[in-house]
């Protein structure tokens, strides 16, 4: 039937939002673009099945997340056909404020799953139950991963504050 949603329309409409989400997970625009393309390739492969269940968005976000955590580093990287620039956050004068930049950098040192839990909780504002489902882990694990991640960021923050008084960061 022609009134069925088309993959192309979905992908076109949601690309920017998915890229933002992937950028939160990966911390860099290249990996984000690669990750979203890969997840959309897979969505396309199962489009008729997924869209029958009426929830391609959740399918593709779950794919992005699990790919990133479980598979991505082991996968052969394909040529990315376009070189995505990191957009300067000109519309927000505080976008690159030092404390945020520090925190952003510290996030990159977290294990991927821990970072994903933080992204889902503090950016996507998901409940622990939702996070557990997306990541395929128990709620208890969500909570322990979150507290471990926060603990690391806290101790890193204190180190940074100390060294910021010295010469080098």
């Amino acid at each position: 039937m022609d009134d069925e949603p088309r993959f192309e329309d979905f992908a076109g409409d949601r690309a920017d939002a998915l890229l933002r989400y992937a950028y939160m997970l990966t911390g860099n625009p290249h990996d984000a673009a690669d990750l979203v393309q890969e997840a959309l390739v897979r969505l396309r492969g199962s489009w008729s099945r997924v869209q029958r269940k009426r929830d391609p968005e959740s399918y593709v976000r779950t794919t992005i997340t699990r790919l990133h955590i479980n598979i991505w580093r082991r996968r052969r990287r394909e040529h990315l056909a376009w070189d995505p620039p990191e957009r300067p956050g000109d519309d927000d004068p505080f976008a690159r404020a030092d404390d945020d930049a520090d925190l952003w950098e510290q996030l990159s040192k977290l294990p991927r799953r821990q970072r994903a839990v933080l992204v889902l909780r503090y950016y996507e504002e998901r409940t622990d139950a939702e996070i557990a489902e997306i990541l395929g882990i128990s709620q208890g694990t969500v909570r322990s991963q979150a507290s471990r991640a926060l603990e690391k960021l806290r101790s890193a923050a204190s180190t940074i504050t100390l060294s910021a008084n010295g010469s080098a960061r």
Partner: protein
Amino acid sequence: MTDLEDALTRTFTRAATRAPAAPPDFVRQVDMRYVRRRRGRSVAVAAAVTAVVAGSVLGTRVLSTTSPAPAVKPDTTVSQAAPAVVEVAPPIERVWPRAVHEIPAGLPNGQAFNADLFLDDRTVVGRALRGGPALKPGIWSYDLDSGKFTSLATLTAPSVASLVAGDGFLAWSTLNKRTVEIWTIPAKGGTPRKITSFLGVSSGEDTYHGIDMTIADGKVAWSPAKDGGVYQVPLSGGEPTLVPGTERHHLLRWPWAGYPTHDVSGLSGGPAKEPPMAHLLNVRTGERSDAVTGPGEKGWTCGVTWCVTFQKARHRDGTGERNLPGSVSLGGPVPYSGRFLLLYQQGKSGERGASIYDLSTGRAAALVRSPARKGDTALPTIHLRDGLFSYKRGNKQVLVNLGAVK
């Protein structure tokens, strides 16, 4: 919320303003990547990738040495101008009955059997990679006449790419940390022997891109998928050597290697570049063959004899252009075994099918057909390699021996 949690929300929100925006052709890039994947060179490193994959066509490109087609030689037997209105082709059992076989999906012990190649018209060779902890990965052959599996070798490390055959040997590659190892056994079976190894993932990289491999002239020859170059080592073993003058060239179909490679091609939506494999080099003789393309033409991908787009095909020299009786979006616009495409066809009544199209004769045969009713099962995953197409049907698998298509 704690201060830290507040700071996280703020950091993420601000970072969102720096996130990359999708370029105008983003969806097209996804399409191309999807298509490349379907025809592409297997995902090399991790079996884990299959965990999320669903549906459609998986391609593994394995180079074969059988009947190398001459370049730029128009084929005179081809039927002209296939009809634009597409019908699903008749079933393959009727069109090429001697090429299609149904065999068990797994060994008697329950391990799945991945058919890789036809050693001859009656013998299939493949790998059994997964099973219980007690079951070792191995190489097996299946005799179409007796219906029996025979073990050819036990593997200590699963192969990361399909087997190749030639000169009485089977060869495959494995990845051990950053090192690619090439192994062989006699085609009748034996103990695996490592004939060479080399660095597959340089330091500073975290991705193995795979190799394209073949056996020919008493040697194993391969190209690293990313950087190209044709390397060789004798079947008896030794150090890899680069065939002089093959830098940047990617093995396509022995003895032909070419550039640009399929994976970083004009297909990917960048500015108009040359078709993949526009330039070929005969590794044996040094002969060169350049595909003819008109000014501003885009979307062509070339093989040794043919160049193909999603709807059209023609010879490398630009002659004999015809419409395809379907869309190549399933398998990607690259001929397998030099002359076969997998086409998606849809009839007027809504019937759908995945059909094999023989460029050299213009004949097509439906591999799978699906009735028109909504909610019917999707087409199965079809595995494409030079020499062999296959898909799973219940607890059986259907194999098409492209070498037996006459």
